[in-house]
Protein backbone atom coordinates (compact mmCIF):
# COMPACT_ATOMS: atom_id res chain seq x y z
CA UNK A 1 0.00 0.00 0.00
CA UNK A 2 1.25 3.50 -0.72
CA UNK A 3 2.56 5.43 2.26
CA UNK A 4 1.74 9.05 3.04
CA UNK A 5 2.26 11.26 6.06
CA UNK A 6 -0.21 11.86 8.87
CA UNK A 7 -0.64 15.48 7.61
CA UNK A 8 -1.29 14.25 4.06
CA UNK A 9 -3.78 11.69 5.35
CA UNK A 10 -5.73 14.42 7.14
CA UNK A 11 -5.68 16.60 4.03
CA UNK A 12 -6.87 13.68 1.92
CA UNK A 13 -9.84 13.08 4.22
CA UNK A 14 -10.73 16.77 4.02
CA UNK A 15 -10.39 16.83 0.24
CA UNK A 16 -12.45 13.69 -0.28
CA UNK A 17 -15.29 14.82 1.98
CA UNK A 18 -15.29 18.33 0.50
CA UNK A 19 -15.57 16.78 -2.95
CA UNK A 20 -18.50 14.63 -1.86
CA UNK A 21 -20.46 17.30 0.01
CA UNK A 22 -20.64 21.00 -0.85
CA UNK A 23 -21.75 21.75 2.71
CA UNK A 24 -18.33 20.88 4.11
CA UNK A 25 -16.16 23.97 4.43
CA UNK A 26 -12.99 24.97 6.25
CA UNK A 27 -12.09 28.17 8.00
CA UNK A 28 -9.58 29.43 10.52
CA UNK A 29 -6.40 31.40 10.93
CA UNK A 30 -4.05 31.07 7.92
CA UNK A 31 -5.82 28.04 6.47
CA UNK A 32 -6.34 29.66 3.04
CA UNK A 33 -3.58 30.41 0.56
CA UNK A 34 -0.98 29.93 3.29
CA UNK A 35 -2.25 26.37 3.76
CA UNK A 36 -2.28 26.41 7.55
CA UNK A 37 0.61 27.01 9.93
CA UNK A 38 1.44 23.29 9.79
CA UNK A 39 0.63 23.03 6.09
CA UNK A 40 -2.27 20.64 6.57
CA UNK A 41 -4.74 22.51 4.36
CA UNK A 42 -2.18 23.28 1.64
CA UNK A 43 -3.75 23.30 -1.83
CA UNK A 44 -7.35 23.16 -0.64
CA UNK A 45 -7.87 26.90 -1.17
CA UNK A 46 -6.72 26.54 -4.76
CA UNK A 47 -8.90 23.48 -5.28
CA UNK A 48 -12.12 24.58 -3.59
CA UNK A 49 -11.90 28.37 -3.67
CA UNK A 50 -12.28 31.16 -1.15
CA UNK A 51 -15.88 30.37 -0.24
CA UNK A 52 -15.00 26.93 1.10
CA UNK A 53 -11.56 27.59 2.51
CA UNK A 54 -11.78 30.84 4.41
CA UNK A 55 -9.17 32.77 6.33
CA UNK A 56 -10.34 34.46 9.50
CA UNK A 57 -9.06 37.21 11.77
CA UNK A 58 -7.36 36.08 15.00
CA UNK A 59 -10.71 35.63 16.71
CA UNK A 60 -11.12 32.12 18.06
CA UNK A 61 -14.50 32.86 19.62
CA UNK A 62 -15.76 34.21 16.32
CA UNK A 63 -14.39 31.12 14.55
CA UNK A 64 -16.17 28.62 16.79
CA UNK A 65 -19.31 30.76 17.02
CA UNK A 66 -19.57 30.88 13.24
CA UNK A 67 -19.03 27.12 13.15
CA UNK A 68 -21.84 26.50 15.62
CA UNK A 69 -24.26 28.86 13.88
CA UNK A 70 -23.62 27.43 10.44
CA UNK A 71 -23.93 23.87 11.77
CA UNK A 72 -27.33 24.81 13.20
CA UNK A 73 -28.34 25.76 9.68
CA UNK A 74 -27.29 22.48 8.09
CA UNK A 75 -23.77 23.29 6.94
CA UNK A 76 -20.83 21.11 7.95
CA UNK A 77 -18.14 23.47 9.23
CA UNK A 78 -14.59 22.31 9.88
CA UNK A 79 -12.98 25.14 11.84
CA UNK A 80 -9.28 24.96 12.60
CA UNK A 81 -7.68 26.25 15.80
CA UNK A 82 -3.94 26.57 15.32
CA UNK A 83 -3.05 25.16 18.76
CA UNK A 84 -5.27 23.36 21.24
CA UNK A 85 -3.76 25.71 23.82
CA UNK A 86 -5.93 28.38 22.17
CA UNK A 87 -9.09 26.56 23.17
CA UNK A 88 -8.70 28.48 26.40
CA UNK A 89 -9.83 31.69 24.68
CA UNK A 90 -12.91 30.04 23.16
CA UNK A 91 -13.58 27.42 25.80
CA UNK A 92 -17.23 28.42 26.08
CA UNK A 93 -18.02 27.10 22.60
CA UNK A 94 -16.49 23.69 23.27
CA UNK A 95 -18.09 23.32 26.69
CA UNK A 96 -21.12 25.53 27.29
CA UNK A 97 -22.33 26.00 23.74
CA UNK A 98 -21.95 23.39 20.99
CA UNK A 99 -22.14 20.24 23.13
CA UNK A 100 -25.24 21.51 24.94
CA UNK A 101 -27.34 22.84 22.08
CA UNK A 102 -29.17 19.64 21.28
CA UNK A 103 -29.84 18.74 24.90
CA UNK A 104 -30.87 22.15 26.17
CA UNK A 105 -33.35 22.74 23.37
CA UNK A 106 -34.89 19.33 23.98
CA UNK A 107 -33.81 17.95 20.62
CA UNK A 108 -35.33 20.73 18.51
CA UNK A 109 -31.95 20.78 16.81
CA UNK A 110 -31.21 17.21 15.80
CA UNK A 111 -27.85 17.47 14.11
CA UNK A 112 -24.93 19.67 14.96
CA UNK A 113 -22.10 18.55 12.70
CA UNK A 114 -18.97 20.53 13.48
CA UNK A 115 -15.46 19.14 13.58
CA UNK A 116 -12.99 21.37 15.37
CA UNK A 117 -9.51 20.45 14.18
CA UNK A 118 -6.62 21.51 16.34
CA UNK A 119 -3.07 20.51 17.24
CA UNK A 120 -1.80 19.01 20.45
CA UNK A 121 1.36 17.98 22.19
CA UNK A 122 4.93 18.91 22.97
CA UNK A 123 8.49 18.43 21.68
CA UNK A 124 8.32 21.36 19.29
CA UNK A 125 10.24 23.58 21.72
CA UNK A 126 7.43 26.08 22.07
CA UNK A 127 7.07 26.14 25.88
CA UNK A 128 3.99 26.14 28.06
CA UNK A 129 1.41 27.89 25.86
CA UNK A 130 1.86 25.93 22.61
CA UNK A 131 2.66 22.40 23.74
CA UNK A 132 0.00 21.16 26.09
CA UNK A 133 -2.15 18.04 25.95
CA UNK A 134 -5.49 19.35 27.14
CA UNK A 135 -7.75 16.55 25.92
CA UNK A 136 -8.69 15.49 29.45
CA UNK A 137 -10.67 18.69 30.00
CA UNK A 138 -12.84 17.98 27.01
CA UNK A 139 -13.60 14.40 27.99
CA UNK A 140 -15.52 15.93 30.89
CA UNK A 141 -17.99 17.56 28.51
CA UNK A 142 -21.09 15.48 27.81
CA UNK A 143 -22.17 16.02 24.22
CA UNK A 144 -18.66 16.48 22.83
CA UNK A 145 -16.68 13.70 21.16
CA UNK A 146 -12.89 13.75 21.47
CA UNK A 147 -10.73 12.03 18.87
CA UNK A 148 -6.94 11.52 18.95
CA UNK A 149 -5.47 9.70 15.93
CA UNK A 150 -2.01 8.17 16.28
CA UNK A 151 -1.30 6.79 12.80
CA UNK A 152 -1.76 8.13 9.24
CA UNK A 153 -4.29 5.35 8.58
CA UNK A 154 -6.39 6.25 11.60
CA UNK A 155 -5.97 9.98 10.99
CA UNK A 156 -7.75 9.64 7.66
CA UNK A 157 -10.33 7.09 8.74
CA UNK A 158 -11.22 8.82 11.97
CA UNK A 159 -11.45 12.25 10.34
CA UNK A 160 -13.72 10.82 7.65
CA UNK A 161 -15.89 9.35 10.41
CA UNK A 162 -15.94 12.75 12.15
CA UNK A 163 -16.91 14.56 8.95
CA UNK A 164 -19.84 12.16 8.52
CA UNK A 165 -20.89 12.33 12.16
CA UNK A 166 -23.62 14.72 13.31
CA UNK A 167 -22.24 15.86 16.65
CA UNK A 168 -19.67 18.43 17.80
CA UNK A 169 -16.23 16.85 17.76
CA UNK A 170 -12.78 17.91 18.90
CA UNK A 171 -10.19 16.30 16.61
CA UNK A 172 -6.68 16.54 18.06
CA UNK A 173 -3.72 16.24 15.68
CA UNK A 174 -0.30 15.67 17.22
CA UNK A 175 2.25 18.09 15.79
CA UNK A 176 5.11 15.59 16.00
CA UNK A 177 3.09 13.01 14.05
CA UNK A 178 2.45 15.29 11.04
CA UNK A 179 5.62 14.13 9.29
CA UNK A 180 5.28 10.45 10.20
CA UNK A 181 4.46 8.19 7.22
CA UNK A 182 2.41 5.04 7.09
CA UNK A 183 0.21 2.98 4.79
CA UNK A 184 -3.06 4.73 3.91
CA UNK A 185 -5.67 3.46 1.41
CA UNK A 186 -6.42 5.89 -1.40
CA UNK A 187 -10.17 5.38 -1.30
CA UNK A 188 -12.47 6.77 1.40
CA UNK A 189 -12.94 4.67 4.50
CA UNK A 190 -14.12 5.07 8.04
CA UNK A 191 -12.48 4.16 11.32
CA UNK A 192 -15.49 4.12 13.64
CA UNK A 193 -15.54 6.56 16.54
CA UNK A 194 -15.64 5.10 20.03
CA UNK A 195 -13.58 2.02 19.15
CA UNK A 196 -10.13 1.43 20.55
CA UNK A 197 -7.79 -0.87 18.63
CA UNK A 198 -5.32 -3.48 19.75
CA UNK A 199 -2.24 -2.42 17.81
CA UNK A 200 -0.15 -5.34 19.09
CA UNK A 201 -1.48 -8.47 20.71
CA UNK A 202 0.12 -9.83 23.86
CA UNK A 203 -0.54 -11.84 26.99
CA UNK A 204 1.58 -10.53 29.87
CA UNK A 205 0.63 -6.87 30.31
CA UNK A 206 -1.70 -4.33 28.65
CA UNK A 207 -0.16 -1.00 27.68
CA UNK A 208 -2.87 1.58 26.95
CA UNK A 209 -2.11 4.86 25.20
CA UNK A 210 -3.16 7.22 22.40
CA UNK A 211 -1.81 9.85 20.01
CA UNK A 212 1.97 10.22 19.92
CA UNK A 213 2.37 8.10 23.05
CA UNK A 214 1.23 5.08 21.04
CA UNK A 215 4.47 5.13 19.03
CA UNK A 216 6.59 5.29 22.16
CA UNK A 217 4.51 2.55 23.75
CA UNK A 218 4.91 0.26 20.72
CA UNK A 219 8.65 0.81 20.89
CA UNK A 220 8.63 -0.18 24.57
CA UNK A 221 6.61 -3.29 23.69
CA UNK A 222 9.39 -4.29 21.29
CA UNK A 223 11.98 -3.80 24.02
CA UNK A 224 9.88 -5.96 26.35
CA UNK A 225 9.60 -8.63 23.65
CA UNK A 226 13.38 -8.82 23.52
CA UNK A 227 13.21 -9.77 27.21
CA UNK A 228 10.61 -12.42 26.44
CA UNK A 229 7.65 -10.36 27.72
CA UNK A 230 4.50 -10.27 25.60
CA UNK A 231 2.84 -6.86 25.89
CA UNK A 232 -0.54 -6.03 24.41
CA UNK A 233 -0.77 -2.44 23.15
CA UNK A 234 -4.10 -0.64 22.91
CA UNK A 235 -4.65 2.64 21.06
CA UNK A 236 -7.70 4.39 22.51
CA UNK A 237 -8.15 6.45 19.29
CA UNK A 238 -11.37 8.04 20.61
CA UNK A 239 -11.25 9.40 24.17
CA UNK A 240 -14.90 10.30 24.33
CA UNK A 241 -16.82 8.06 24.11
CA UNK A 242 -14.31 5.68 25.66
CA UNK A 243 -14.23 2.03 24.57
CA UNK A 244 -14.55 0.36 27.97
CA UNK A 245 -15.13 -3.12 26.53
CA UNK A 246 -11.84 -3.42 24.65
CA UNK A 247 -9.97 -2.25 27.75
CA UNK A 248 -11.73 -4.73 30.02
CA UNK A 249 -11.28 -7.68 27.67
CA UNK A 250 -7.56 -7.08 27.36
CA UNK A 251 -6.87 -6.56 31.05
CA UNK A 252 -8.97 -9.58 32.03
CA UNK A 253 -6.60 -11.53 29.76
CA UNK A 254 -3.25 -10.01 30.85
CA UNK A 255 -4.14 -9.16 34.47
CA UNK A 256 -1.78 -6.17 34.41
CA UNK A 257 -2.03 -2.67 32.95
CA UNK A 258 -0.08 0.53 32.39
CA UNK A 259 -1.83 3.64 31.06
CA UNK A 260 0.28 6.18 29.23
CA UNK A 261 -0.63 9.77 28.41
CA UNK A 262 1.34 12.88 27.41
CA UNK A 263 -0.84 15.16 29.52
CA UNK A 264 0.04 16.10 33.09
CA UNK A 265 -0.53 13.31 35.57
CA UNK A 266 -3.39 14.90 37.51
CA UNK A 267 -6.92 14.00 36.45
CA UNK A 268 -7.34 13.38 32.77
CA UNK A 269 -7.68 10.40 30.49
CA UNK A 270 -5.32 7.96 32.20
CA UNK A 271 -7.13 8.43 35.49
CA UNK A 272 -10.42 7.76 33.73
CA UNK A 273 -9.05 4.60 32.13
CA UNK A 274 -7.88 3.41 35.53
CA UNK A 275 -11.35 4.06 36.91
CA UNK A 276 -12.86 2.12 34.05
CA UNK A 277 -10.57 -0.86 34.73
CA UNK A 278 -11.19 -0.76 38.47
CA UNK A 279 -14.91 -0.81 37.76
CA UNK A 280 -14.77 -3.61 35.21
CA UNK A 281 -11.78 -5.76 36.09
CA UNK A 282 -10.57 -5.20 39.65
CA UNK A 283 -10.75 -8.84 40.60
CA UNK A 284 -8.68 -9.81 37.54
CA UNK A 285 -5.75 -7.56 38.44
CA UNK A 286 -2.51 -9.14 39.67
CA UNK A 287 -0.83 -5.79 40.35
CA UNK A 288 -1.84 -2.17 40.86
CA UNK A 289 -2.38 -0.30 37.59
CA UNK A 290 0.39 2.19 36.86
CA UNK A 291 0.12 5.43 34.90
CA UNK A 292 2.81 7.29 32.99
CA UNK A 293 2.25 10.97 32.32
CA UNK A 294 3.92 14.36 32.19
CA UNK A 295 5.10 15.84 35.47
CA UNK A 296 2.54 18.12 37.06
CA UNK A 297 4.21 21.36 36.05
CA UNK A 298 4.36 23.87 33.19
CA UNK A 299 6.06 22.64 30.02
CA UNK A 300 9.47 24.34 30.07
CA UNK A 301 11.12 25.77 26.97
CA UNK A 302 14.68 24.57 27.49
CA UNK A 303 14.95 21.27 25.54
CA UNK A 304 16.56 19.13 28.25
CA UNK A 305 13.90 20.26 30.70
CA UNK A 306 11.03 19.63 28.29
CA UNK A 307 12.37 16.16 27.47
CA UNK A 308 12.65 15.32 31.15
CA UNK A 309 9.23 16.70 32.01
CA UNK A 310 7.30 14.79 29.34
CA UNK A 311 6.82 11.03 29.43
CA UNK A 312 9.32 8.96 27.45
CA UNK A 313 10.19 5.35 26.66
CA UNK A 314 12.35 4.92 29.75
CA UNK A 315 9.47 5.96 32.00
CA UNK A 316 7.04 3.67 30.19
CA UNK A 317 9.47 0.78 30.36
CA UNK A 318 10.09 1.34 34.07
CA UNK A 319 6.35 1.40 34.79
CA UNK A 320 5.80 -1.78 32.79
CA UNK A 321 8.58 -3.58 34.62
CA UNK A 322 7.22 -2.44 37.97
CA UNK A 323 3.80 -3.82 37.12
CA UNK A 324 5.34 -7.05 35.85
CA UNK A 325 7.19 -7.38 39.16
Amino acid sequence: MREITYAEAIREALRQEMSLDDNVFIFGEDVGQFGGCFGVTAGLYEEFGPERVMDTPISESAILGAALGSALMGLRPVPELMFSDFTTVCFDYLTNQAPKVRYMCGGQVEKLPMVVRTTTGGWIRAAGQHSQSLEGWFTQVPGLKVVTPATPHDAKGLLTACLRDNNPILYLEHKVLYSVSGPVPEEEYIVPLGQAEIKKEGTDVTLISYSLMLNKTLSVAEQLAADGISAEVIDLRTLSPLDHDTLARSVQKTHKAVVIQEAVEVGGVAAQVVKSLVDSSFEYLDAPIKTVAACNTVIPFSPPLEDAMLPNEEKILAAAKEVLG
Partner: protein
Amino acid sequence: MELSKEKLLDMYKTMVSIREFEQSLSEAVTAGTLPGFVHLGIGQEAIHVGVTTALRPTDWVSSTHRDHGMLLARGADIKRMRAEIFGKVTGYCKGKGGSMHLAAFDKGAPGCNGILGPSQTINNGIALALKKRGQGDIAVVVFGDGAAHRGEFHEALNLAACWKLPVLAICVNNQYAISVCFDDACAIEDIAARSSGYGIPGLVVDGNDVMAVYEAISETAKSIREDKGPALLELKTRRFKGHFEGDPQSYKTPEEVAEEMKNDPIPLFVKQLLEQEITTEETLKGIDDEVKKEMQEAIEFAEQSDYPPLEEIFTDLYYEERRNV
Protein backbone atom coordinates in the same frame (compact mmCIF):
# COMPACT_ATOMS: atom_id res chain seq x y z
CA MET B 1 -48.74 54.47 9.74
CA GLU B 2 -48.06 52.27 6.75
CA LEU B 3 -49.08 49.05 8.48
CA SER B 4 -52.67 47.81 8.18
CA LYS B 5 -55.11 48.25 11.03
CA GLU B 6 -55.15 44.50 11.57
CA LYS B 7 -51.38 44.41 11.80
CA LEU B 8 -51.30 47.31 14.26
CA LEU B 9 -53.90 45.68 16.48
CA ASP B 10 -51.97 42.46 16.26
CA MET B 11 -48.87 44.32 17.46
CA TYR B 12 -50.88 45.74 20.35
CA LYS B 13 -52.15 42.32 21.27
CA THR B 14 -48.65 40.85 21.25
CA MET B 15 -47.30 43.64 23.46
CA VAL B 16 -50.12 43.13 25.96
CA SER B 17 -49.70 39.40 25.79
CA ILE B 18 -45.98 39.64 26.59
CA ARG B 19 -46.77 41.97 29.51
CA GLU B 20 -49.37 39.55 30.80
CA PHE B 21 -47.02 36.59 30.38
CA GLU B 22 -44.24 38.29 32.32
CA GLN B 23 -46.62 39.64 34.96
CA SER B 24 -47.95 36.17 35.65
CA LEU B 25 -44.37 34.90 36.06
CA SER B 26 -43.76 37.68 38.55
CA GLU B 27 -46.79 36.48 40.50
CA ALA B 28 -45.51 32.91 40.42
CA VAL B 29 -42.15 34.05 41.81
CA THR B 30 -43.97 35.84 44.63
CA ALA B 31 -46.05 32.73 45.27
CA GLY B 32 -42.91 30.59 45.32
CA THR B 33 -44.18 28.23 42.62
CA LEU B 34 -41.61 29.01 39.92
CA PRO B 35 -38.43 26.87 39.89
CA GLY B 36 -35.17 28.83 39.61
CA PHE B 37 -35.26 32.45 38.55
CA VAL B 38 -36.50 34.60 35.69
CA HIS B 39 -35.43 37.84 34.05
CA LEU B 40 -38.52 39.77 33.07
CA GLY B 41 -38.78 42.01 30.03
CA ILE B 42 -41.58 44.21 31.34
CA GLY B 43 -41.05 47.66 29.83
CA GLN B 44 -39.24 46.31 26.75
CA GLU B 45 -42.22 45.00 24.79
CA ALA B 46 -41.88 47.67 22.09
CA ILE B 47 -38.54 46.12 21.18
CA HIS B 48 -39.85 42.57 20.97
CA VAL B 49 -42.77 43.58 18.80
CA GLY B 50 -41.06 46.32 16.79
CA VAL B 51 -38.17 44.05 15.83
CA THR B 52 -40.20 41.00 14.88
CA THR B 53 -42.83 42.97 12.94
CA ALA B 54 -40.07 44.25 10.68
CA LEU B 55 -38.71 40.77 9.93
CA ARG B 56 -39.66 38.04 7.49
CA PRO B 57 -40.68 34.63 8.85
CA THR B 58 -37.56 33.26 7.14
CA ASP B 59 -35.22 35.65 8.94
CA TRP B 60 -33.58 34.47 12.15
CA VAL B 61 -33.56 36.32 15.44
CA SER B 62 -31.47 35.38 18.48
CA SER B 63 -32.24 37.14 21.71
CA THR B 64 -31.32 37.48 25.39
CA HIS B 65 -32.18 36.09 28.81
CA ARG B 66 -34.74 38.91 29.12
CA ASP B 67 -36.58 38.06 25.92
CA HIS B 68 -39.42 35.62 26.48
CA GLY B 69 -41.19 38.41 24.63
CA MET B 70 -39.07 38.05 21.53
CA LEU B 71 -40.11 34.41 21.15
CA LEU B 72 -43.77 35.21 21.80
CA ALA B 73 -43.60 38.03 19.26
CA ARG B 74 -42.05 35.61 16.81
CA GLY B 75 -45.15 33.48 17.14
CA ALA B 76 -44.01 30.91 19.69
CA ASP B 77 -46.81 29.03 21.43
CA ILE B 78 -47.60 30.66 24.76
CA LYS B 79 -48.58 27.35 26.36
CA ARG B 80 -45.30 25.65 25.47
CA MET B 81 -43.45 28.77 26.63
CA ARG B 82 -45.13 28.70 30.02
CA ALA B 83 -44.64 24.94 30.35
CA GLU B 84 -40.91 25.24 29.65
CA ILE B 85 -40.45 27.86 32.34
CA PHE B 86 -42.07 25.49 34.82
CA GLY B 87 -39.86 22.57 33.74
CA LYS B 88 -42.62 20.54 32.10
CA VAL B 89 -42.18 17.99 29.32
CA THR B 90 -44.63 19.87 27.10
CA GLY B 91 -42.30 22.87 27.05
CA TYR B 92 -40.33 23.92 23.99
CA CYS B 93 -37.20 22.24 25.31
CA LYS B 94 -38.99 19.40 27.11
CA GLY B 95 -38.22 21.20 30.35
CA LYS B 96 -34.46 20.88 29.86
CA GLY B 97 -33.71 24.52 29.10
CA GLY B 98 -35.99 26.64 31.25
CA SER B 99 -36.51 30.38 31.12
CA MET B 100 -32.96 31.29 30.22
CA HIS B 101 -32.64 28.83 27.34
CA LEU B 102 -36.04 28.98 25.73
CA ALA B 103 -35.81 28.45 22.00
CA ALA B 104 -38.28 27.99 19.16
CA PHE B 105 -36.20 26.88 16.22
CA ASP B 106 -39.29 26.41 14.06
CA LYS B 107 -39.82 30.17 14.39
CA GLY B 108 -36.24 31.00 13.44
CA ALA B 109 -35.68 31.83 17.08
CA PRO B 110 -32.71 30.00 18.64
CA GLY B 111 -33.67 32.05 21.64
CA CYS B 112 -31.76 32.89 24.71
CA ASN B 113 -28.25 31.92 25.73
CA GLY B 114 -27.19 31.53 29.32
CA ILE B 115 -23.83 33.10 28.53
CA LEU B 116 -23.56 36.70 27.33
CA GLY B 117 -21.67 37.09 24.07
CA PRO B 118 -21.85 33.77 22.20
CA SER B 119 -25.17 34.57 20.55
CA GLN B 120 -23.35 37.32 18.66
CA THR B 121 -20.70 35.02 17.20
CA ILE B 122 -23.15 32.16 16.63
CA ASN B 123 -25.36 34.58 14.73
CA ASN B 124 -22.54 35.04 12.22
CA GLY B 125 -22.73 31.35 11.37
CA ILE B 126 -26.48 31.60 10.88
CA ALA B 127 -25.91 34.65 8.68
CA LEU B 128 -23.24 32.84 6.67
CA ALA B 129 -25.66 30.01 5.95
CA LEU B 130 -28.39 32.49 4.97
CA LYS B 131 -25.96 34.32 2.69
CA LYS B 132 -25.04 31.06 0.97
CA ARG B 133 -28.76 30.37 0.43
CA GLY B 134 -29.07 33.74 -1.29
CA GLN B 135 -32.73 34.41 -0.48
CA GLY B 136 -32.10 37.81 1.09
CA ASP B 137 -32.86 36.60 4.61
CA ILE B 138 -31.00 38.15 7.50
CA ALA B 139 -29.74 37.03 10.91
CA VAL B 140 -30.64 39.38 13.74
CA VAL B 141 -28.99 39.18 17.12
CA VAL B 142 -30.34 41.06 20.10
CA PHE B 143 -28.10 41.56 23.13
CA GLY B 144 -27.97 43.87 26.11
CA ASP B 145 -25.63 46.72 26.97
CA GLY B 146 -23.89 44.32 29.36
CA ALA B 147 -23.10 41.84 26.56
CA ALA B 148 -21.78 44.70 24.43
CA HIS B 149 -18.76 44.70 26.69
CA ARG B 150 -17.82 41.09 26.02
CA GLY B 151 -14.94 40.48 23.62
CA GLU B 152 -17.37 38.60 21.42
CA PHE B 153 -19.07 41.86 20.50
CA HIS B 154 -15.87 42.90 18.80
CA GLU B 155 -14.93 39.53 17.35
CA ALA B 156 -18.41 39.02 15.95
CA LEU B 157 -18.91 42.44 14.37
CA ASN B 158 -15.41 42.54 12.94
CA LEU B 159 -15.84 39.15 11.27
CA ALA B 160 -19.37 40.01 10.10
CA ALA B 161 -18.02 43.18 8.49
CA CYS B 162 -15.03 41.38 6.92
CA TRP B 163 -17.25 38.64 5.49
CA LYS B 164 -20.03 41.14 4.67
CA LEU B 165 -22.59 38.95 6.40
CA PRO B 166 -26.33 39.73 6.51
CA VAL B 167 -26.17 40.54 10.22
CA LEU B 168 -28.27 43.03 12.13
CA ALA B 169 -26.80 43.50 15.60
CA ILE B 170 -29.22 45.10 18.03
CA CYS B 171 -28.02 46.35 21.38
CA VAL B 172 -30.88 46.79 23.82
CA ASN B 173 -29.46 49.38 26.17
CA ASN B 174 -31.58 49.41 29.31
CA GLN B 175 -28.83 51.21 31.21
CA TYR B 176 -28.13 48.46 33.72
CA ALA B 177 -26.01 45.32 33.65
CA ILE B 178 -27.48 43.71 36.76
CA SER B 179 -26.65 46.53 39.21
CA VAL B 180 -23.91 48.37 37.35
CA CYS B 181 -25.21 51.38 35.45
CA PHE B 182 -24.12 51.93 31.88
CA ASP B 183 -22.13 55.09 32.68
CA ASP B 184 -19.91 53.12 35.05
CA ALA B 185 -19.29 50.35 32.51
CA CYS B 186 -18.83 52.30 29.30
CA ALA B 187 -16.80 55.41 28.58
CA ILE B 188 -18.93 56.53 25.65
CA GLU B 189 -22.59 57.48 25.49
CA ASP B 190 -23.79 55.21 22.70
CA ILE B 191 -22.83 51.64 21.85
CA ALA B 192 -23.94 52.44 18.30
CA ALA B 193 -20.95 54.79 17.99
CA ARG B 194 -18.72 51.72 17.92
CA SER B 195 -20.06 50.89 14.46
CA SER B 196 -17.52 53.23 12.93
CA GLY B 197 -14.80 50.89 14.19
CA TYR B 198 -16.12 48.23 11.83
CA GLY B 199 -17.03 50.49 8.94
CA ILE B 200 -20.72 49.67 9.27
CA PRO B 201 -23.80 51.85 9.87
CA GLY B 202 -24.85 52.57 13.45
CA LEU B 203 -28.06 54.10 14.70
CA VAL B 204 -29.65 55.00 18.04
CA VAL B 205 -33.42 54.56 18.34
CA ASP B 206 -36.00 55.09 21.08
CA GLY B 207 -36.67 51.52 22.15
CA ASN B 208 -39.92 52.35 23.88
CA ASP B 209 -41.64 53.57 20.72
CA VAL B 210 -42.75 50.45 18.89
CA MET B 211 -43.30 52.25 15.61
CA ALA B 212 -39.89 53.92 15.76
CA VAL B 213 -38.31 50.50 16.38
CA TYR B 214 -40.31 48.93 13.56
CA GLU B 215 -39.36 51.65 11.09
CA ALA B 216 -35.67 51.65 11.99
CA ILE B 217 -35.40 47.87 11.74
CA SER B 218 -37.33 47.76 8.46
CA GLU B 219 -35.09 50.38 6.89
CA THR B 220 -31.87 48.80 8.13
CA ALA B 221 -32.97 45.26 7.22
CA LYS B 222 -33.68 46.42 3.67
CA SER B 223 -30.09 47.52 3.21
CA ILE B 224 -28.75 44.28 4.72
CA ARG B 225 -30.97 42.21 2.41
CA GLU B 226 -29.35 44.03 -0.50
CA ASP B 227 -26.01 42.54 0.54
CA LYS B 228 -24.66 45.82 1.88
CA GLY B 229 -23.24 44.15 4.98
CA PRO B 230 -24.03 44.27 8.69
CA ALA B 231 -25.39 47.13 10.79
CA LEU B 232 -25.51 48.00 14.48
CA LEU B 233 -28.63 49.44 16.07
CA GLU B 234 -28.94 50.58 19.64
CA LEU B 235 -32.40 50.65 21.19
CA LYS B 236 -32.51 52.79 24.33
CA THR B 237 -34.97 51.55 26.89
CA ARG B 238 -35.48 50.72 30.55
CA ARG B 239 -36.47 47.56 32.34
CA PHE B 240 -39.24 48.08 34.85
CA LYS B 241 -38.26 45.09 36.94
CA GLY B 242 -34.98 44.15 38.57
CA HIS B 243 -32.31 42.10 36.82
CA PHE B 244 -34.01 38.97 38.13
CA GLU B 245 -37.50 38.92 39.55
CA GLY B 246 -37.14 39.71 43.23
CA ASP B 247 -34.16 42.01 42.74
CA PRO B 248 -35.15 45.09 44.81
CA GLN B 249 -33.19 47.43 42.51
CA SER B 250 -31.47 49.12 45.42
CA TYR B 251 -29.10 50.63 42.86
CA LYS B 252 -31.86 52.87 41.49
CA THR B 253 -33.41 55.86 43.29
CA PRO B 254 -37.22 55.98 43.67
CA GLU B 255 -37.18 59.09 41.46
CA GLU B 256 -35.36 57.18 38.72
CA VAL B 257 -37.86 54.33 38.86
CA ALA B 258 -40.78 56.77 38.70
CA GLU B 259 -39.20 58.48 35.71
CA GLU B 260 -38.71 55.14 33.90
CA MET B 261 -42.36 54.26 34.36
CA LYS B 262 -43.45 57.42 32.53
CA ASN B 263 -42.16 55.89 29.31
CA ASP B 264 -44.17 52.69 29.39
CA PRO B 265 -44.26 51.51 25.77
CA ILE B 266 -47.79 50.12 25.96
CA PRO B 267 -49.65 53.31 26.94
CA LEU B 268 -47.44 55.14 24.44
CA PHE B 269 -48.61 52.88 21.64
CA VAL B 270 -52.23 53.07 22.81
CA LYS B 271 -51.99 56.86 22.64
CA GLN B 272 -50.71 56.65 19.05
CA LEU B 273 -53.47 54.23 18.05
CA LEU B 274 -56.23 56.34 19.58
CA GLU B 275 -54.91 59.71 18.41
CA GLN B 276 -54.69 58.47 14.86
CA GLU B 277 -58.17 57.00 15.22
CA ILE B 278 -56.98 53.54 14.25
CA THR B 279 -59.02 51.91 16.95
CA THR B 280 -61.20 52.52 19.99
CA GLU B 281 -60.69 51.93 23.68
CA GLU B 282 -63.46 49.38 23.52
CA THR B 283 -61.67 47.34 20.88
CA LEU B 284 -58.47 47.44 22.90
CA LYS B 285 -60.36 46.35 26.00
CA GLY B 286 -61.67 43.39 24.02
CA ILE B 287 -58.12 42.46 23.07
CA ASP B 288 -57.01 42.75 26.70
CA ASP B 289 -59.74 40.32 27.76
CA GLU B 290 -58.78 37.89 25.02
CA VAL B 291 -55.14 38.00 26.15
CA LYS B 292 -56.11 37.33 29.77
CA LYS B 293 -58.13 34.32 28.68
CA GLU B 294 -55.24 32.91 26.60
CA MET B 295 -52.87 33.46 29.50
CA GLN B 296 -55.16 31.63 31.87
CA GLU B 297 -55.29 28.70 29.44
CA ALA B 298 -51.50 28.68 29.23
CA ILE B 299 -51.18 28.66 33.02
CA GLU B 300 -53.57 25.71 33.24
CA PHE B 301 -51.79 23.90 30.42
CA ALA B 302 -48.46 24.18 32.23
CA GLU B 303 -49.96 23.19 35.57
CA GLN B 304 -51.60 20.12 34.11
CA SER B 305 -48.51 19.04 32.14
CA ASP B 306 -46.16 16.39 33.46
CA TYR B 307 -42.55 16.76 34.41
CA PRO B 308 -40.23 15.00 31.95
CA PRO B 309 -39.69 11.28 32.65
CA LEU B 310 -36.32 10.41 34.19
CA GLU B 311 -35.14 8.90 30.89
CA GLU B 312 -34.92 12.46 29.60
CA ILE B 313 -31.78 12.93 31.71
CA PHE B 314 -29.88 11.10 28.97
CA THR B 315 -31.84 11.77 25.79
CA ASP B 316 -30.92 14.44 23.23
CA LEU B 317 -27.22 14.34 24.11
CA TYR B 318 -25.90 12.84 20.88
CA TYR B 319 -27.24 12.31 17.41
CA GLU B 320 -26.66 8.63 16.80
CA GLU B 321 -26.88 8.12 13.07
CA ARG B 322 -24.01 8.80 10.77
CA ARG B 323 -24.57 10.68 7.54
CA ASN B 324 -24.66 8.60 4.40
CA VAL B 325 -22.54 9.75 1.53
